[in-house]
């Protein structure tokens, strides 16, 4: 039941997506704030240094997009027409960038107020949802934190990246390492209890010892820290850093060293009470959280799960990111933000146009509908491939029955099971408890496992082998 695509100036808008076909109402939202002080050389997110003061008009447009999203997000037939009357509920919101904390507090107040007028945030307010804003240490002020807290923000993710000035320079980050602890304290003072820190390792020239020291300093920075994201520096295509590396300006970290750093991270954070629940994400066990005042949010996944409740639910994991990793649903606002809805036959993925001016013009011209690019319509095979790719990366893993039920109609159930068994034989995957989870040794090979599982879905992969076997017999 595809509705007529809404198109303005020949561009496809997200409102052309049949949002009513979503299996359940969409209850997550990602908001992208593209502004930065400085464009970091390793970063491939859409962001830029705004030379003109366009923050105000940007927020106006963003609010228009919220309005349009709210009209469509409620589900049911009214969703496609954009005629929903009740404010749709959101369980998780994530504001990323760019540098969201660069937005002026008065604009933040308008943005947060508008969100609250258009969406039902009661789950978040009740402490069963999650509302995260990304912050750079140097931009955090008491005023900003108070504004965020008053607007319902209950979680900050602080981009520390490194505590070593030398490595910060390599990354082209220009904050003072001392500001990290200050920023976290300001958030805590404002009543934002859920705090996460981002770190980067495998920076060119970094030693294992230096990384270990970064980790220690991160843990010392905030007693109440409940979450850490530790990423190996990734050379994304088309970033200046990647170009310099390819040109031979510097050597990327050795594969062995990078692996050692990762293993150290897992060990060190485990000692500090943090459990790995995704390849690069760690959450502090509740019993290790002081008074245990933190309460885990409700089930926000749209994905049918079978079997026991995954351990991740007892951890202060990032609920919003877990929606991504479980291939759940979320709406998108702001330039370059991507969205996903789950339908019977798979799901729609799309991305708002990654250009501020184009996005603002598109939103203004159509009453809140951003032009979109990279729309991928539902495809059961693709959806399962994505589920495998994302699912192996989280500790809860994949439910074997769900995988079989979804592979069966594709004629790939047998091949998929064989591929999983093959990875189990290599010692990378555990098939225990009817769930497919990476083994301790398997975490470093998540991509290899994913690509082998995904390959089992390729058309003809299963039938091809059968034909080969029969010709041997014949």
């Amino acid at each position, binding site marked *: 039941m595809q509705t007529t695509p809404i198109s303005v100036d020949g561009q496809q808008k997200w409102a052309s997506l049949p949002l009513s076909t979503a299996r359940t109402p969409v209850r997550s939202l*990602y908001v992208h704030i593209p502004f930065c002080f400085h464009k970091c050389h390793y970063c491939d997110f859409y962001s830029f240094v705004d030379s003109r003061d366009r923050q105000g008009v940007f927020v106006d447009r963003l609010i228009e997009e919220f309005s349009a999203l709210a009209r469509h997000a409620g589900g049911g037939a009214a969703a496609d027409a954009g005629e929903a009357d009740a404010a749709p509920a959101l369980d998780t919101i994530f504001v990323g960038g760019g540098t969201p904390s660069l937005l002026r507090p008065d604009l933040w107040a308008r943005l947060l107020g508008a969100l609250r007028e258009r969406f039902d945030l009661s789950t978040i307010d009740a402490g069963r949802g999650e509302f995260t804003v990304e912050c750079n240490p140097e931009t955090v002020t008491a005023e900003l934190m108070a504004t965020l807290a008053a607007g319902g923000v209950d979680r900050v993710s602080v981009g520390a990246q490194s505590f070593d000035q030398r490595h910060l320079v390599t990354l082209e980050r220009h904050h003072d390492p001392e500001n990290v602890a200050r920023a976290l304290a300001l958030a805590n003072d404002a009543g934002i209890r859920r705090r996460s820190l981002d770190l980067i390792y495998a920076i060119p020239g970094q030693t294992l010892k230096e990384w270990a020291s970064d980790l220690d300093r991160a843990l010392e920075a905030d007693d109440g820290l409940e979450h850490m994201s530790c*990423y*190996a*520096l*990734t050379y994304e295509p088309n970033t200046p850093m990647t170009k310099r590396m390819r040109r031979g300006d510097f050597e990327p970290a050795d*594969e*062995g060293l*990078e*692996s050692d750093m*990762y293993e150290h991270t897992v060990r060190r954070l485990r000692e500090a009470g943090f459990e790995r629940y995704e*390849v*690069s994400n760690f959450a502090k066990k509740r019993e290790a959280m002081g008074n245990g005042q933190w309460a885990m949010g409700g089930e926000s996944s749209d994905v049918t799960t079978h079997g026991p409740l995954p351990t991740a639910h007892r951890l202060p994991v990032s609920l919003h*990111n877990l*929606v*991504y*990793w479980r291939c759940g649903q*979320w709406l998108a606002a702001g330039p*370059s*933000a*991507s*969205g*996903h809805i789950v339908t019977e036959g798979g799901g729609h*993925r799309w*991305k708002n146009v990654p250009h501020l001016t184009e996005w603002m013009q598109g939103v203004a011209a159509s009453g809140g509908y951003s032009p979109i690019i*990279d729309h*991928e319509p539902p495809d059961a095979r*693709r959806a399962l*491939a*994505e589920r495998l*790719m*994302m699912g192996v*990366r989280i500790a809860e893993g994949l439910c074997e029955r769900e995988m079989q039920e979804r592979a069966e109609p594709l004629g790939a159930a047998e091949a998929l099971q064989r591929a999983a068994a093959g990875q189990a034989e*290599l010692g990378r995957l555990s098939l225990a408890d009817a769930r497919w989870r990476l083994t301790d040794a398997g*975490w*470093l*090979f*998540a*991509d*290899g496992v*994913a*690509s*082998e599982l*995904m*390959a089992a879905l390729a058309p003809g992969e299963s039938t*091809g*082998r059968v*034909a*080969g*076997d029969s*010709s*041997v017999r014949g």
Partner: protein
Amino acid sequence: MQIRNFSIIAHIDHGKSTLADRLLQSTHAVTDREAREQLLDDMDLERERGITIKASAVTVRHVHNGEEFMLNFIDTPGHVDFSYEVSRALTACEGAVLVVDSTQGVEAQTVANAYLAVENNLELIPVVNKIDLPAANPDDVAMEIEQILGLPAEDCIYASAKTGQGIDKLLAAICEKLPPPRDSIISETRALVFDTEYNDYRGVVVYVRVFDGRLNIGDRIRMMGVGRTYVVTELGKYTPKPTKVQTLGAGETGYLIAAIKALADVRVGDTITLDIEPASEPLPGYEEPKQMVFCDFYPSSSAAGSGGKGADFEQLREAVEKLNLNDASFTFQTVHSEALGFGFRCGFLGLLHMDIVQERLEREGGVEIVQTAPTVNYQILMTTGEIREITNPADLPDPNYYEEIREPIVKMEIIVPKECIGDVMSLCGARRGVYKSQQYISETRQMLIYELPLAEIIYDFHDKLKSMTRGYGTMDYELSGYHKDRLVKVDILINGAPVEALSIIVHRDSAEQRGRALLVRLRKEIDRHQFEIALQAAIGGKVIARETIKSMRKNVTAKCYGGDVTRKRKLLEKQKEGKKRMKSVGNVEIPQEAFMAVLDQGD
């Protein structure tokens, strides 16, 4: 009507095909509008590679001094691999036009082809081509022709196939200087098969030159060599469009169609006679094509190491058999390798021929191939006195059972600029070459004559020669015999298991160096695995070199969020795709490049 049968011979790229086209145009066989570049090459692959693979015979009419001539000309391949095809074409002629590029001068193949023509008692008309180019040096080139081939410089015709300059003079020379075909010497029909081609719609097309008697439609013909008979259903000539005729008389060339199913059913060089009134003696025959280079083709798929003859193998078999209908000059037989499963051992006329066959199999047969490194054939003198021929180092018997290994030796002519002689001589020396002589060509260039083991030149010798002479060096070779040398087989073991397809036969003195170089290359070509991989080179169980590929430590992307899904999915799909052209040996995945690493001489 007078008949002239002739070939055009030249070094590659000296403008042979363009000259052929220009001749057709000048005799009005094709209109200017029809004239397209290199009319006589009709395969895509030929056009892409700019080389002529198939010989074609074309007949045109031309009036010279009021007299009508039938000109039959036979286009010949220009690459060294196809020199046997050149010789077949030459036997059907009385004369040849020798084309030399006026900007390049006499090259190695010019010399080789000219000698071949003289051996066949052909009259030569030297043509200095491309005189329209600013860099043309026709007088010097004419002097080179006189110096090295003994053809008077003043006999050279200066021409430009591109502008048409000199073409009339050339046509006149063809009519005046070339001898007419000899008359029938017996009354029975004898026609020589000098080429064949396979056409999807018409079956086998046989190119013939009638020497005695006559062929008519409806004749029951007999192939004197193979002894099979067919009824002629069509006779014709390419003008250059196929034009049917009722009869082909003595001295004429043309084509013949007779419901022949496969190229393998016709032997090039065979003599056709009439079944009802056969000749008693065949015409002096051609030589069979000689395969010089051998390699294995396996269907590429990482799953096929299991050893079964899977669907992939059947698809390859179909493709190989189909291509063999078109090109009977490559040989094939089923092989089974412990490490690589089922495949084909194929023989080729040369390396270019091998590349062409591989490309056509993939393009026309739709199969992906993993190819092992090419080798030559060796003669093994067994202790029993028997001589056994092997085309695969893996087939070398245990040293206790043989006396010596003999390898094919070629006589090589290399023409190089004077200042490069030192480099080229050291290259030949490093490749176990034996210096024979040196010949003056001009002020600036010399010809070197060497004897070299074929195994030392099949892979990169030509490239090396080209690069050390900045493209000016040219070479041509012919097989001169088999010599014994101190050769040993070096086995390559991957995690302790020998991989036959990586075995090499090398000189004892360079065995360590070659073995080590090979392992270093393998280490670079084989991706890291979950486990450590030991690479060893061994002679008869004694390890002479070893290398280790460390185990892979990680294969994981650090970051994966909502907006990354599509891109990451494509990356992971590619990661798997990249493993396709591989062969598993045990649980080690070996890419195509690794098999070719065998050829790296390390110099």
